[in-house]
């Protein structure tokens, strides 16, 4: 356990050194937040002040929370594991006296905790200043919200890992990554709340793990969903973690068996 903790803290520290990148990320994140808030607010205005249960204030909160979660869940995907499979470095990872998934999860948690603080808080402050934020009424929503973020990061990590592990069988995973991330951006409710979807699309979204990555933590943290329903959503997140973890373990085992690395 200690070694995982050390990996986690080392990754956290590693990312604190990229200060220009952090500033650039905050700037870009906030700019996209402004664009997205404009679009959603205009839609609500056109709908006469409320659209499928979202008021202007709730929609603005929705956007800023989404922007804050963008970096921690790494909504644009990662390619490190796929690259390590292609280059053969994965052989070293598999030989380490650590669980393969545990190693990368510790790194992910280190990155995500840094992103949450450095790239998550500034867009919330900007949102609070520019549009105001809807806050939950029940204080219990805050600890539950933090828990849903942690679970959302885990679901996103496992989904991304499945895409990366596909590299054991297909040579070029870039197309898959692009496709996965664009579907995820839509069905997770990152672009627009999934409750705005037409029924058939909403039904599709609900059968995927994607809403557990973005929609769930936003709903709980903004208080749109009370603590009682939040516990149900946490159950859904946990179920997805189990399913995806199982799938990742199976893929990793099969991949490691078919892996052939030359030279040494």
């Amino acid at each position: 356990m200690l070694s995982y903790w050390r990996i986690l803290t080392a990754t956290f520290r590693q990312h604190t050194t990229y200060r220009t990148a952090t500033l650039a990320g905050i700037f870009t994140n906030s700019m996209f937040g402004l664009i997205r808030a404009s679009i959603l607010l205009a839609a609500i205005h056109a709908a006469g002040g409320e659209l499928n249960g979202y008021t202007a204030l709730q929609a603005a909160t929705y956007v800023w929370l989404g922007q804050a979660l963008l970096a921690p869940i790494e909504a644009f995907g990662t390619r490190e594991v796929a690259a390590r499979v292609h280059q053969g470095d994965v052989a070293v990872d598999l030989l380490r006296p650590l669980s393969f998934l545990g190693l990368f999860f510790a790194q992910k948690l280190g990155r995500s905790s840094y992103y949450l603080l450095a790239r998550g808080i500034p867009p919330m402050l900007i949102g609070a200043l520019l549009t105001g934020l809807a806050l939950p009424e029940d204080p219990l929503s805050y600890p539950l919200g933090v828990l849903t973020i942690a679970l959302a990061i885990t679901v996103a990590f496992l989904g991304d890992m499945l895409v990366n592990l596909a590299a054991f069988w297909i040579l070029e995973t870039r197309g898959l990554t692009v496709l996965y991330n664009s579907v995820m951006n839509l069905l997770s409710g990152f672009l627009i709340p999934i409750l705005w979807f037409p029924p058939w699309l909403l039904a599709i979204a609900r059968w995927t793990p994607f809403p557990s990555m973005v929609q769930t933590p936003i709903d709980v943290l903004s208080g749109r969903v009370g603590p009682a329903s939040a516990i149900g959503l946490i159950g859904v997140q946990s179920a997805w973690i189990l399913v995806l973890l199982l799938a990742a373990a199976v893929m990793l085992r099969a991949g490691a068996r078919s892996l052939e690395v030359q030279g040494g």
Partner: protein
Amino acid sequence: MADRASRLDRPVGPLRMAAALYGSRIRSQASFRASFAADLAGQALLVIVEFIELWVILSQVGVFGGMTLTQVAVVYGLASLAFGLADLAFGEVEQVSSLVRSGRLETLLIRPVPLLLQLSSLDLSLRRIGRIAVGLAMYVGALLAAGFSPGAADLVLAILAPLAGAAIFSALFVAAGALQFWLIDGREFANAFTYGGNYVATTPGAVFGAPMRAFFTFVIPATLVAYTPALVLLDLPGPALLPQWTGWLGLPAAILLWTATALLWRAGVRRYTGAGG
């Protein structure tokens, strides 16, 4: 043989050089057929998935930013077409930051080929044709569906607009690349203007509040790429700051932006000092 040798001795013109560089990239990518097809389909699907956002909103409210779904599709298709063309030609220029960091820029600088041409052809990604194809199909299809009955001037604008838009986005990509000479780690900063510009350009401009609309017109001319030309083509009135005639400002804006970008790029390359190697 002698003839061939003497022909090779002579320095080649810039056009022949560009043709040789781009031709080799195209041939190399087209040779991995399955991967190429998957990438192409992925890019095409990406454009459609991104449009679903607007489509969902319009299925709820009917008129968005003063436009119906068909009219928004004209804006979206036109902007995607323009962005796709620019992305194909200059989308990889921002890679310059990794070239600077790894020291590989020197090898490019000592070759007798303009740096920008090398960077542009280095990673020419044909998969981006997927975005271009879907953008073009949406643009033409939506225009026809919206009952486009062109006069001569309209027709000229309909053809000019995607090219001017592509020039605007190209300039933004190159400017983003030039900024990397100063902000090695700050690649994401430029995304606010390139991808952010695309986001704004694919949306009806009336949606944005006055300060945003002004910024994305006068500083980053994103609204001039597709929204204002669409106002002219569809004969719609424009919002404050963007009267209908601004639909013709795409080309002048592109020229202005390219002038500034060329200066920025030159300053960036001059500022670069190699570490030897």
